[in-house]
């Protein structure tokens, strides 16, 4: 990843579905805006250009793991260059709901070489802050099921044939993802956050760190 000298700040929230990531993004956005910062939100699969296509393709035909990884990378590149970088140059705080780390973890867990995924994202920009919302897989399962009474195919690792039932598959898959994130903590400076706690406690933790960071730099 490249470093840079641009006015804006890139803050990333990583973590599995059910970790409260999106909720935290909303809360933090509201708080930062109330403090007078311009904030922009981005996320995976939100590119207007390619996003819809990925969802369609996943449903229609099984895609090879390399193909899927590259598809996501293309979508990401589009967002980076059309949304994130311009916003940063304009002095925005960009709050990213996931970044390349989820993509790297997903690919690695599916057997693609870690180095290849790392090299693939060589064109991306280094975030200023990255938080990883860590939740115990059993707790995650409970939350996810409460939210949508169904599990996402890929988020359960169902394409990997890990277990006979989706619950076990989910837990095994999430532990594998956790392990990848632990490795990336050291490599990319991810800050682990205990997201087993209630939303407001996690929020106080996150907001505190962000506020401190922003003040240190003004």
């Amino acid at each position, binding site marked *: 990843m490249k470093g840079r000298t641009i006015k804006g700040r890139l803050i990333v929230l990583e973590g599995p579905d059910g970790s409260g990531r999106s909720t935290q993004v909303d809360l933090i956005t509201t708080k930062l805006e109330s403090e007078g910062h311009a904030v922009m939100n981005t996320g995976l699969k939100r590119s207007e*250009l390619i996003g819809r*296509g990925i969802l369609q*393709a996943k449903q229609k035909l099984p895609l*090879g793991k390399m193909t899927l990884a590259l598809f996501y990378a293309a979508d990401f*590149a589009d967002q980076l*260059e059309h949304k994130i970088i311009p916003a940063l140059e304009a002095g925005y705080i960009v709050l990213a709901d996931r970044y390349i780390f989820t993509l790297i973890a997903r690919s690695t867990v599916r057997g693609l070489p870690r180095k290849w995924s790392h090299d693939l994202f060589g064109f991306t920009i280094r975030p200023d802050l990255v938080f990883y919302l860590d939740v115990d897989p059993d707790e995650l399962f409970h939350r996810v099921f409460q939210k949508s009474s169904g599990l996402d195919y890929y988020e359960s690792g169902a394409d990997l044939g890990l277990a006979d039932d989706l619950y076990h598959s989910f837990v095994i898959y999430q532990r594998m993802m956790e392990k990848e994130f632990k490795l990336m903590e050291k490599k990319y400076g991810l800050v682990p956050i205990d997201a087993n706690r209630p939303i407001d406690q996690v929020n106080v933790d996150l907001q505190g760190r962000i506020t401190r960071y922003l003040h240190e730099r003004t």
Partner: protein
Amino acid sequence: MPPTSPTGVTGRWATREKQVGRLIVVEGIDGSGKSIQLHLLEKWLRHLGVPVFTTEWNSSVIVKEITSKGKKSALLTPTTFSLLHATDFADRYERNILPLLNSGYFVLADRYVYTAYARDVVRGCNRRWVRRVYSFAIRPDAIFYFNVPVEVGVKRILTGRTKLKFYEAGMDLNLSNNEYESYRIFQSRINEEYMAMSDKEGFIVMNGVLEIELQQRNMREHVLKLLPSELAAVASLELSTF
């Protein structure tokens, strides 16, 4: 025969397992005549009873839908463009190229990773990065590079064509306001990239200005070396009366 895996900036190559099939690639600027030659080669191999599969650049059905929307509205940056092509390639590779090679097919590719190496770099992508993205692709058994003067290639394409598409003409590079001029410069730069990588990648350089039959004969003589011995003997005999 091309040399063994190159090192350095060309990246690490997938190691070839015990492959029964063969991967034959044609490269060249547009209008170099490579597609015709590949087509004739295909005909010849089928005639010999060899199982053949041909694949073209930018032909994945899934990726096509998505790419064309972007192309029309001219929204794609070099990195995104490069990655979309890589996605298209990966789909064809995982779905067709690799499985068929493993099952003993001769896979003929009209353009391969070298097209990305040349075009994407001309568009401004980092040279090393492009090679790393494609590092999963297996090394071909033969790479035929059809060399023509840029003017010849350009003329062949523009004759009978009334319109050049935006990205095709390299209009995103701001080389010229005139799309024909832009196309010329674009093709010229791609040609330079090809020439620069030719030795290192082990291209079999073909003179794309010679008569079609002569080029084809040349090509077949090279491919002869890739055929199983019994077939090669038969084919060799036929070639001598070509």
